[in-house]
C-alpha cells in the first residue's frame, strides 16, 4: 500500500471517481461559475478526504487543511446555488412541459441521481469537518 487510506476510504474514492466522470460528461454549461466550482468541489473534496487518513503535525499544514476545506465547502455551495447550473436548465425544460405526473416521477429520480452523484464529495467534506474540529482544538482557536 502506497498510502494510508483505509479500505472504506477507497470505496468512497471509487464512488467519487464514478460520479466525477459522470457529472463531467453530462455537464452542458461549460466555463461558467458552476462548471468551475463543480470541478473545484470534486478535486478539493478528494484532497481533504485523502488527507483525512494522515496525521497533520505542523501548524501550517493544519491551517492549510482548514483553508482548503473552507474553499471546498464554498465551491459546493456555489455549484448547487449558482443560477447557471445544469439543474436550472433542466428545471426550465420542465416548466415548459405539461405532464405533471411525469414531472413528479422525474424529479424523484433526479433527486436520487443527485444524491448518488454528489454524496461522495459531501461525505468527504463531512469527514474533513470532523477532523477539522480536532484541528481547531489543537490549534487553540476554540
Amino acid at each position, binding site marked *: *500500500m502506497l*498510502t*494510508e*487510506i*483505509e*479500505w472504506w*476510504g*477507497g470505496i468512497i*474514492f471509487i464512488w467519487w471517481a464514478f460520479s466525477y466522470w459522470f457529472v463531467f460528461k453530462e455537464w452542458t454549461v461549460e466555463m461558467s461559475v458552476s462548471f468551475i466550482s463543480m470541478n473545484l468541489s470534486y478535486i478539493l473534496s478528494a484532497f481533504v478526504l485523502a488527507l483525512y487518513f494522515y496525521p497533520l503535525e505542523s501548524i501550517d499544514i493544519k491551517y492549510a487543511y482548514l483553508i482548503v476545506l473552507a474553499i471546498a465547502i464554498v465551491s459546493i455551495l456555489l455549484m448547487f446555488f449558482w443560477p447557471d447550473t445544469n439543474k436550472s436548465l433542466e428545471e426550465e425544460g420542465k416548466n415548459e412541459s405539461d405532464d405533471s405526473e411525469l414531472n413528479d416521477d422525474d424529479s424523484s429520480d433526479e433527486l436520487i441521481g443527485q444524491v448518488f452523484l454528489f454524496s461522495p464529495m459531501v461525505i468527504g467534506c463531512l469527514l474533513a469537518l470532523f477532523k477539522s474540529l480536532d484541528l481547531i482544538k489543537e490549534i487553540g482557536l476554540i
Partner: protein
Amino acid sequence: MSQNSHTLLLFYKDKQQHKNCLLMFLKLNDGDKEKAKYFSNLLGVDVENHWDNVWFNQEVSAKPDYIRLDYDTSTSEDLPLEILRSLFKNGLDAAILDIFHDQVGEYSRHHFIDNKLVNKEALYKSIENAKKIVSLQLQTFDDEESYVTVEDEISINKLIEDEKKHNEEAKEMVSSILELGKISNETGTNPIELVKSVLILRAAGKGLLQALIFGITTVLLFKGFWLWIVLSLFAVFFLISYHISQVNKEFIDEEEVVSDVN
C-alpha cells in the same frame, strides 16, 4: 461524368501582387508557360501542376479589387488548400471558394482570411466591398447550411493536417477491408462473422485491461488487499461481459435495420 464546379475569388490589397497573380492565371490560360512561370516565381506560388492535371474548363476574369477563377475538378478532389496557403504566404488577403457538388446538387462556400478559414461575416468585415462583390459575382443561398461556418477560425495549416490524417485513415480502412476479404477468402468464413469475432476479442481485451488498471490502482492506493483482489475479479467478469454485450447489441441492431430495409 460528375464533376465539381469551383469559383475562387481572390482579394489583394497590394496592387502589384494583384497584378502578378492575375497575369500568372492569364498566361496559364493562354498556354504561355514561360511567362506564367515568370509571374509564378514573382509571386512565389506554383499552380501549374494543378492547372494542367487537376483543374479543367478554367476561366479567368478580374476587376481592380478582385480576381475570379472558375474551374472544374473531379468529384474526389479536395479543397486547393496548399495553393491557398502559398497564396496567403505571398500577399493574398482573403479568398472565397464556392463549390457546386454536381453529384449531390449542393453548394458549399468557404471564406478565408490571413491563412484561416473564417465565417462570412468576418470576411465581409475585413474586406471592403466584399459583400457587394459577392452579391454580384456569386449566387445567394437561401439555405444557410451552404455557407461553411466555424465556431473559431481554423488555420489552413490545421486543415491540411486534418485532411492528411483523414486520407491516411481512409487508406488504412481500405487496406484493412481488403485484408479482411483476403482472410475470409482463405479461411472460407463469412467476413461479418470474422469482424464480429475480432470485435468481441477486442472488447474482451478492453474489459480485461480496465479491470487490471482498477485492480492495480486500488491494491496500490488503498488498504484491504483481499477486498480489492475480490472486487477486481468481479470487475474482470463484469467488464468483459459488458463490453461483449455491447458488441452483440450493435450487431443485433444492424441485423434488425437490414431486415427492416428488406
